[in-house]
């Protein structure tokens, strides 16, 4: 392997010192869904770094293999700058020492376009021809030797999912070669190369400039050339010729391939596609919404978080802080006994009292409510850190026991949908619906995720192609989509209100959602990007791939979002100890009583909704409300401002100005619509 490192391509003009010290950069490139990550997993093993690419939000995964630094790139159909993912992939590719191009043998016509582009860029490269088993199933054959001869680079057969072909591939990497390029194109590239500034791969940069890439051209102080179309057409023709030469139909399609093709057809045919879509959404709801969000999270948050972890932390502070602990003894969901223990000098100074307290809770199912004395600055500080909304208490519980399982559940489901090839089909099915709101079908991902966690979904709006679409999706999410934390409480309250009122609530929210999208579509300048999406064949999801994707995405979300939850908690706790929170509640009381015709206490629920959306909903649960009032109150909290973490994510994704417009707009929308619903309901029923 060392010989390889020393040999280094003559084209490289990087400083020699840097070259020797750093390992070779092996970049994996391929179309979306070609099983690239399986190759990456094989080479990099378990220990990988995931980072957001600077200035964008596309993830780059890196690992080490022998003396290579292995970099995985987002799936792309070609190297250029059509979207964020392509820009990131482009820069990683342009800095490669060796390129491993993973090709889906089943989609040779599509994939070879990228391969030829990489060959034209004159990288030392190896082509891995993946999914050879599926090719055989489909009754086809590829003349690999001939393909390798035409391209001028090693081509290796592989079936990554069955771990076949990896040994050959490892050997082939040592013989990675620069491939055959058309003489005419070579001449043009050389002409541009002569004018370049020092760079890692001059031929590659030169080709990008010929193909009109403005950013690469600017790096060299050159004007981009407008020859993309001509080069693309020539490349497309060459691909078609190569495919005609190496690909042969050998036998009849086997059963597996027939099933995959039929299934693929059913998913996008209106008659069968709609039921499949509804089934998929129902399944997400059952698994993530009911099982994870309600059962798993319910258990973890209450039993581990509220009953064990939080009291543990609070007791540490209580040792030296004046505190009153109110213990509620539970039997099932009912409080059967309440007892208050006062420790004016902290628990460590009152041994006997504390023993009495411990004896009282021994063996009982209890909740402990800590009221730290607010008389000293220390007491206030403890409240901020470990109080009701404390950074070490509520925030940790929230992140570890609520958000983590939930986000993991959603990402796992998304990974399954992505891996089996259903996601682009889903996007196709809902495209019409979304285009009415100025979005295209791709927006289905953030919107679905929004029902899990609006913060997570807001971050995912990056996937959308234009800033306009990102704005629309982020607005819909933060105005009108209730997150799962809220959904559970909303569902419980709606059960109280009954079927008719649930329907009214549902229609009001749906109308708002559609109205927001439609109005923004009319107001915002420009047009949204139309759908143009490749539909990969359907196949069984690969468990290792799904697990790895879930893990990587969950990890990066938690790392990114967690700080904002802490910031949020600090702000609210500070508002609590300074009395600001109560001030806001009082400010709201007149609006709640006169305009919304709700009890004054619901003002508190609304204000708390600014912190965590389910707090808002939960606060309503205890109030005696008529069914009409439930509809009004739920409408308000659903349309009301996003939680603090979502707001922070919104600021980060869409900028402070846009975030504030959405945030302030939520106030107007929530109380405006809430008041209108109250007015209509009062006139219709004269019930409250």
């Amino acid at each position, binding site marked *: 392997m060392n010989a390889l490192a020393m040999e280094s391509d003559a084209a490289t003009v990087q400083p020699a010192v840097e070259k020797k010290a750093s390992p070779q950069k092996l970049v994996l490139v391929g179309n979306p869904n070609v099983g690239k990550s399986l190759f990456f997993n094989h080479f990099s093993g378990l220990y990988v770094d995931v980072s957001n690419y600077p200035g964008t939000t596309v993830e780059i995964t890196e690992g080490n293999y022998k003396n290579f630094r292995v970099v995985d790139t987002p799936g792309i159909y070609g190297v250029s700058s059509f979207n964020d993912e392509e820009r990131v992939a482009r820069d990683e590719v342009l800095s490669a020492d060796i390129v491993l191009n993973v090709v889906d043998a089943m989609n040779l016509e599509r994939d070879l376009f990228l391969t030829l582009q990489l060959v034209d860029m004159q990288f030392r490269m190896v082509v891995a021809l993946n999914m050879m088993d599926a090719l055989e199933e489909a009754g086809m054959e590829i003349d690999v030797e001939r393909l390798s001869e035409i391209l001028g680079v090693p081509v290796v057969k592989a079936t990554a999912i069955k771990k076949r072909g990896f040994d050959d591939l490892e050997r082939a990497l040592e013989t990675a070669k620069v491939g055959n390029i058309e003489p005419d194109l070579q001449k043009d590239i050389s002409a541009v190369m002569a004018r370049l500034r020092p760079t890692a791969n001059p031929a590659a940069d030169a080709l990008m400039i010929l193909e009109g890439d403005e950013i690469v051209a600017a790096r060299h102080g050159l004007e981009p050339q407008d020859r993309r179309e001509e080069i693309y057409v020539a490349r497309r023709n060459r691909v078609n010729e190569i495919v005609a030469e190496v690909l042969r139909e050998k036998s009849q399609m086997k059963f597996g391939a027939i099933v995959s093709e039929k299934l693929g057809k059913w998913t996008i045919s209106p008659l069968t596609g709609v039921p499949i879509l509804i089934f998929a959404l129902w399944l997400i709801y059952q698994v993530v919404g009911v099982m994870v969000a309600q059962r798993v999270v319910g258990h973890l948050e209450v039993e581990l978080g509220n009953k064990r972890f939080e009291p543990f932390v609070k007791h540490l502070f209580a040792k030296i802080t004046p505190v009153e602990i109110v213990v509620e003894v539970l039997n099932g969901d009912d409080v059967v006994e309440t007892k208050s223990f006062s420790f004016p000098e902290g628990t460590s100074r009152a041994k006997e009292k504390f023993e009495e307290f411990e004896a009282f809770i021994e063996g009982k199912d209890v909740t402990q409510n800590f009221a730290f004395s607010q008389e000293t600055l220390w007491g206030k500080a403890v409240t901020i850190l470990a109080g009701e909304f404390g950074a070490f208490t509520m925030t940790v519980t929230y992140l570890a026991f609520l958000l983590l399982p939930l986000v993991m559940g959603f990402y796992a489901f998304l990974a399954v949908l992505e891996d089996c090839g259903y996601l682009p089909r889903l996007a196709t099915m809902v495209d*019409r619906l979304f285009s009415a709101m100025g979005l295209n079908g791709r927006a289905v991902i953030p919107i679905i995720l929004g029902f899990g966690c609006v913060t997570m979904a807001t971050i995912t709006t990056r996937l959308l192609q234009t800033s306009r679409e990102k704005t629309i999706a982020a607005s819909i999410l933060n105005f009108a989509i209730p997150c799962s934390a809220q959904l559970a409480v909303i569902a419980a309250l709606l059960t109280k209100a009954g079927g008719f009122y649930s329907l009214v609530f549902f229609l009001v929210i749906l109308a708002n959602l559609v109205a927001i999208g439609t109005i923004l579509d009319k107001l915002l300048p420009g047009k949204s990007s139309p759908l143009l999406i490749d539909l990969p064949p359907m196949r069984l999801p690969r468990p290792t791939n799904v697990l790895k994707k879930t893990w990587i995405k969950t990890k990066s979300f938690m790392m990114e979002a967690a700080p904002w939850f802490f910031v949020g908690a600090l702000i609210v706790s500070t508002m609590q100890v300074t009395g600001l929170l109560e001030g806001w509640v009082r400010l709201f009381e007149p609006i709640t009583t006169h305009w919304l015709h709700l009890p004054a206490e619901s003002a508190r629920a609304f204000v708390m909704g600014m912190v965590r959306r389910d707090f808002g909903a939960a606060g309503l649960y205890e109030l005696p409300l008529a069914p009409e009032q439930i509809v009004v109150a739920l409408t308000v909290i659903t349309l009301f401002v996003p939680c603090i973490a979502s707001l922070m994510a919104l600021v980060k994704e869409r900028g402070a100005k846009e975030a504030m417009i959405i945030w302030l707009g939520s106030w107007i929308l929530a109380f405006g619509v809430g008041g209108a619903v109250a007015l209509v309901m009062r006139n219709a029923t004269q019930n409250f």
Partner: protein
Amino acid sequence: MQSIEPNWVSLQAVRKGERFVVRRIDDKQTRAQLLRFGLAEGSDATCFERLPLGPIVVKRRRQEVAIGAELSEKIWVEVIAN
């Protein structure tokens, strides 16, 4: 501006199951993107599925591409016999 031949129709007008040759794509970016998927001006494909008012799914060999309704109006094709 190239002319549109009388026997060309927009992709929007193609019925499910019909075969056609792509004649002209009126958008530079789309042209480049479709070239990558193997749908160049001059290549043939089939209308694999049409969603009511929605995208059209075009198939060429094993490659399926969903094209939004709006975009399909910018793609001129000539329907040919199967």
